């Protein structure tokens, strides 16, 4: 048990420190008063679409459904080389809504970041936002978000993203995951440490995006790369929890795996690209706390999961089976002689204390996250909640295993 007995306390200390730090930060920041919009600046809304004939109408409907003056919306649909009828659906929509200023850009499939830059070129708005063609936004979103731009340092304001029509255990688990993640991002926002401005309806100040050079490929995570760049140029990114955007999430494990693989790989590759910011005082908590964590957390989690799996499950299981083989698998002899003389002192208190502290902290974070996103703890039912609590980290561990493999075997050259 040597390795795990050294690694476990160290990781325990680090995790404890980060969690306590976040909780202090959260408690330290009182929720600012809700701001009210006074004037209505022009907002460009981009809907990039690649083969989204099924869902794009829903998205466009939610855009024109926004509670915002019609003549202050500059809507740009970018058809990124769709091979289905996305183009036709979009054209029809434009015809039907000629009271709105809607443009359609058709381009060869070049990825989302190129689509965003094409839209950026013709966008006229003071603010710029993108709504992925699989998402929809609440009516009051712009009215709630734009007032935060009164601070000139603010370059982006982000909504709370929720899963659209969650069905099946995987999507329901993701509901819980999103709630916790966005609560965490809210805390990061207090610290000016947000490292990703997710695709669905993050609102940017357009001149800032122009000034820093538009979107980049960013290892297929352009929304992460731009956040790092905004941090580099010392802009603020604000996370809100009272503006809802609903988005579809992966239905099956395979899609889930590829999405998370892309996201997490993007996060560490982007940290690596911007590594010069790390541990520099001028980048504050972002350089000192957030970047190292983004870089290491996944690998640490994966190592722990593997070690725990190996030492606490696989090894005892293998030993047990091997031992039984030595006595011709006479299990009944042991069952008949089970000693029920349980003694509280016999428990491995050292591990129990760690587990108890971790569970307490996790539940605190989990409960606070639900409270501040105004969700019920059992919003998705008890079974997905249990699966989330028991197996989510195992799932993440598996994803990081894949990422580690990819980084070692495929992406070494890019580093």
């Amino acid at each position, binding site marked *: 048990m040597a390795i795990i007995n050294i690694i476990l306390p160290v990781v325990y200390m680090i995790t404890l420190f980060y969690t306590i730090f976040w909780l*202090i930060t959260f408690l330290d920041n009182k929720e600012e008063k809700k701001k009210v919009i006074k004037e209505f600046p022009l907002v460009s809304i981009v809907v990039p679409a690649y083969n989204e004939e099924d869902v794009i109408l829903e998205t466009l409907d939610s855009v024109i459904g926004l509670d915002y003056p019609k003549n202050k919306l500059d809507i740009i649909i970018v058809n990124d080389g769709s091979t289905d009828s996305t183009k036709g659906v979009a054209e029809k929509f434009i015809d039907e809504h000629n009271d709105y200023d809607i443009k359609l850009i058709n381009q060869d499939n070049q990825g989302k970041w190129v689509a965003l830059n094409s839209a950026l070129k013709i966008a006229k708005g003071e603010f710029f936002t993108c709504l992925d063609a699989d998402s929809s936004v609440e009516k009051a979103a712009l009215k709630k978000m734009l007032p935060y731009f009164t601070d000139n340092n603010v370059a982006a304001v982000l909504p709370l993203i929720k899963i659209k029509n969650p069905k099946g255990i995987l999507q329901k688990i993701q509901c819980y995951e999103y709630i916790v993640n966005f609560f965490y991002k809210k805390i990061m926002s207090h610290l000016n440490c947000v490292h990703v401005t997710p695709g669905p309806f993050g609102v940017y100040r357009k001149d800032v995006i122009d000034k820093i050079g538009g979107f980049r490929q960013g290892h297929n995570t352009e929304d992460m790369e731009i956040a790092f760049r905004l941090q580099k140029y010392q802009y603020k990114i604000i996370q809100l929890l009272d503006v809802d955007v609903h988005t579809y999430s992966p239905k099956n494990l395979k899609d889930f795996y590829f999405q998370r693989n892309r996201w997490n790989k993007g996060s560490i590759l982007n940290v690596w690209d911007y590594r010069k910011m790390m541990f520099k*005082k*001028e980048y504050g*908590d972002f350089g000192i706390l957030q970047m190292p964590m983004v870089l290491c957390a996944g690998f640490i989690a994966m190592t722990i999961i593997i070690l725990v799996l190996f030492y606490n499950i696989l090894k005892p299981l293998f030993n047990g089976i091997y031992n039984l083989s030595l*006595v011709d698998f006479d299990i009944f002899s*042991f069952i*008949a002689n089970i000693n029920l003389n349980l003694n509280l002192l*016999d428990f491995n208190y050292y591990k129990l*204390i760690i587990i108890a*502290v971790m569970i307490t902290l996790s539940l605190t974070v989990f409960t606070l996250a639900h409270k501040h996103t105004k969700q019920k703890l059992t919003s998705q039912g008890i079974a997905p909640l249990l699966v989330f609590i028991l197996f989510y980290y195992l799932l993440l561990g598996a994803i990081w295993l894949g990422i580690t493999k990819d980084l070692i075997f495929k992406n070494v050259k890019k580093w």
Partner: protein
Amino acid sequence: MVREFNKKRYIIAALLTLFVFVLGLMLGLVIEGKRVQYIQSINRIEKLDYNSLQLQYAYIEQLSQERNCDAVSKTFENSVKSLIETSERLENYEQNANLNKEDLHALKREYILAQLNYWLLAKRTKKICNRDLVTILYFYSTDKECPDCGEQAFILTYLKNEFKDKLLIFALDSTYTDEPMIGMLKDQYEISGYPTLVIEDKVFESFTSKDEILKTVCSLYKEDIDYCMDYN
């Protein structure tokens, strides 16, 4: 934007982390202390049990009261069971101890002596009460040099479950050099490696399979024993 860097927050978080960590350690210290106390309290009773048993056998022997043998044997078996349970518990506590290792280490000596006392007493009872039983001394080691000790112990536990009071197994930590008796026994049986079994007076060095042990053990019983049917 000029970033605020809140040093105070880092310090508070670090202090709180330390506090929780130390609190855990303190709790551990308390529990370890309780463990030592617990073993000590059982040890006191077990010592009395041993004295009483010794007296009972002396009584039987001197006054030829063999009709009491069954009852005394039962007590003997229960005492050995309790002793072995406590020894195992103590071993487990010592392995997991971080702070009270020395107290537990000292207690372990008591248990080595107690086991050897019972081992000798068992040999006497065979004569006094004409008991048909086999004793095994199991020399193990707690360090990493004994990868097979876990498996050997598993087999012995299994056999104990099968033979019940017909088989007495005493486990001795051969690396415990503070107790000269261990050295004497190792010399007498010429033991150098682990695991080693001494079945009555036969020595089996290195890992011994269930069948090998059974062959020897079964040949030593005078009566027929169900479990030995295939090995006689």
